[in-house]
């Protein structure tokens, strides 16, 4: 267990990857969004205004997930760390940073509610259907969203590391084809109404739990790939 915890310290050597770039992405997206809200508000628009800028650091988590594997797995092997220790320690690191990011989002949402969107009815962190479940539900939603991005990046990187670029591309294309096929199937069965109703019934908490299930599946499957990967 001690060695697994040490993997966290090994991962956090990448200050730039885990700390500075996410902070810059988040801070930058926040500043730009507020500036745009300011321009719109000064033009006399009453809002409420919502923007997608808060997604930026979440997308970056996919990059972090990929780099956690490609940059640090070879070194972990030279430190005589087992693949299992590396796998668990790396996901603990991800959980730690995702928890921190989710905390910023949850608290940011509360602040925006309290200040009525920075006094100009513009929202960056606050999403009504997420935050209305309470700060804990909002935190869990953002935590699992960040984890999902991380785990997906890591999962792709293990396939790349073990099988190479061609196989990774083929797998990603395969997934895209399956998704398109599903869309076609839903349209064919004229089931969009049912799908919409099901999504509505899940609510943000329900979707969060489905997300956690997907995260667990991806973590387990990337472990099976990593078990035979070579640095």
């Amino acid at each position, binding site marked *: 267990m001690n*060695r697994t915890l*040490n993997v966290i*310290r*090994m*991962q956090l*050597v*990448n*200050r*730039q*990857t885990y700390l500075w770039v996410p902070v810059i992405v988040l801070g930058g997206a926040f500043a730009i969004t507020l500036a745009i809200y300011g321009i719109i508000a000064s033009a006399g628009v009453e809002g409420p205004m919502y923007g997608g800028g808060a997604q930026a650091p979440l997308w970056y988590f996919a990059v972090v997930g990929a*780099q956690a594997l490609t*940059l*640090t797995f*070879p*070194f972990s*092997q*030279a*430190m*005589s*760390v*087992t*693949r*299992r*220790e590396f796998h668990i320690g790396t996901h603990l690191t991800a959980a730690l940073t995702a928890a921190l990011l989710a905390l910023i989002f949850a608290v940011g949402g509360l602040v925006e509610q309290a200040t009525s969107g920075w006094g100009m009815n513009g929202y960056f962190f606050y999403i009504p259907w997420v935050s209305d479940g309470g700060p804990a539900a909002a935190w869990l939603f953002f935590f699992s969203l960040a984890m999902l991005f991380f785990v997906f990046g890591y999962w792709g990187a293990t396939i790349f590391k073990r099988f190479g670029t061609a196989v990774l591309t083929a797998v990603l294309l395969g997934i895209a084809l399956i998704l398109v096929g599903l869309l076609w199937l839903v349209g064919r069965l004229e089931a969009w109404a049912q799908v919409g109703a099901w999504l509505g019934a899940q609510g943000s908490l329900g979707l969060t739990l489905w997300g956690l299930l997907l995260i667990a599946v991806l973590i387990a499957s990337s472990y099976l790939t990593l*078990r*035979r990967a*070579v*640095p």
Partner: protein
Amino acid sequence: MTTVIEVKNLTKRYRDTLAADDVSFSIEKDTIYGLLGRNGAGKTTVMSILTAQNFATSGEVRIFGENPYENAHVLSRMCFVRESQKYPDDATPRHAFRIARLFYPHWDQELADQLIDEFQVPMKKTIKKLSRGQLSAVGVVIGLASRAEITFFDEPYLGLDAVARQIFYDRLLEDYSRHPRTIILSSHLIDEVSNLLERVIVIDKGRIIMDEETDAVRGRAANIVGDTAAVDAFVAGREVIHRESLGRVSSVTILGELTAEDLSLLTRAGLDVAPVSLQQLIVRTTQHAGRTAGDAERAASDIDEGALR
């Protein structure tokens, strides 16, 4: 003697090459081994399979009697920093050493500090910006200061200048005599490391062509120099691994120990005996094996079983 590494019938096949071809050998505790061979002979592959970084196609590896794969108990007693080691993107040597200290239970910080000073490792530069020699120095510091029970050095001198290489050899011997452990040094600069080595394992095209004590190897061959006709008469019927001629003078390298009778025969014929350096011997054995490999199993098995064993 205690065996710490036991390899049986190890084969590693890449798409069209055999990096290890039915290799068997064992490594004894507290001994310095040289794993010698040309670039691409399979040295790094064998070491990375022993440390469970890579996987064998077939065969068996036992470290301290156990399978090393995903075995933290066994792995934490071994250290293998490869020649082309990758480090975390933002890592500086300071980070790398701090992490190594976390994972290696016998890490000696004092020794690490001394080596960092002697090799002049820049501690605050990111590792990806280091020169080849500085990169090698980082690996050497980790390898020595980790004091792992089995330590692999993979061409550790690459890019190091002569002074730094001598520091490495001196510190290795010094620390080894104070803290005996098993050291496996892969190298193609054979003469430079030959004084360190107690045993040599020579690997060529994925096969082991020599596994012997260094001193015994040195006595196994000799250069016979003198008049071509006299040299030819003397070497007739012996295993010749190399021949050079200039005018009427020939220098022929033969395998096999020279007896007292041989020596008096040589004196009478007016021939000189010159010692063969380990490097010469290995180079010529390797070339010899390469030449004869084509024309039958017989010649190769002569080398394996006859002359060298």
